[in-house]
């Protein structure tokens, strides 16, 4: 699924300058616990989170995740947005809740972690 489609489904706003809407997103992982993201997420995926600090960007960068959606209309500060731009990770914000966000994306075919993923 392209990032542009995710933006449309979530009625999301792009926060970072590097919003390549053609970016292909394979899977999604949602958590507010960054340790869980590090432990269980998969590469080239979308991170859905309600946490907005700079550690979210660092975590996504370390875990090779492609893009981040902040839920519940929560916006990170400018420093965090700059860090994401530096790391080339597009940031989106949606007014939907975590559950609503995941539900909408899942309904449109975006999958989570497969049992076969390590």
């Amino acid at each position: 699924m392209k990032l542009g489609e995710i933006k449309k489904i979530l009625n999301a706003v792009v926060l970072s300058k590097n919003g390549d809407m053609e970016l292909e997103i394979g899977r999604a992982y949602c958590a507010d616990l960054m340790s869980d993201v590090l432990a269980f997420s998969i590469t080239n995926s979308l991170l859905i989170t309600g946490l907005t600090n700079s550690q979210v960007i660092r975590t996504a960068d370390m875990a090779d995740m492609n893009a981040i959606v902040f839920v519940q209309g929560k916006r990170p500060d400018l420093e965090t947005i700059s860090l994401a731009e530096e790391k080339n990770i597009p940031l989106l914000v949606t007014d939907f809740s975590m559950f609503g966000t995941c539900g909408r994306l899942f309904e449109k075919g975006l999958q989570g972690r497969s049992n076969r993923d390590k």
Partner: protein
Amino acid sequence: MNKTAEGVFFLTGKDFAKAGVASSNLKAILESMGVPPDIIRRAAIAAFEAEVNVIIYAVAGMMHYSITQEMIKIIVQDMGPGIPDIALAMTEGYSTAPDYIREMGFGSGMGLPNIKKSTDKLTVNSVVGEGTTLEFIINLNKTA
């Protein structure tokens, strides 16, 4: 990949704004050396977890790395409170982190188990009241 590299990053306790900078720099070094992405991801995740631990718990610490054709070896040494029961600390979900750390998304008790999971060998040495040293290795050439 036929290069080697070695270096050290210094870490300051409670400096949360810089948490991840050392691991990010290490990741860039590994990328510049042409290490395969899946290996880089494992090293970056383990280094980041270790770095965050130092920043959460210790006064200061250092992350030493050496990259050879055979392996990536990372030693993270801190001046911190030490771990009284290492076996307990290795248990998934066990954490002594205060609430404000959890609010930042860490301290869920996955750090050490996650380092172990991401690496080929992890050694933890700790002295209560003095500090902790983690040494972990990721093999680059399984047949070597």
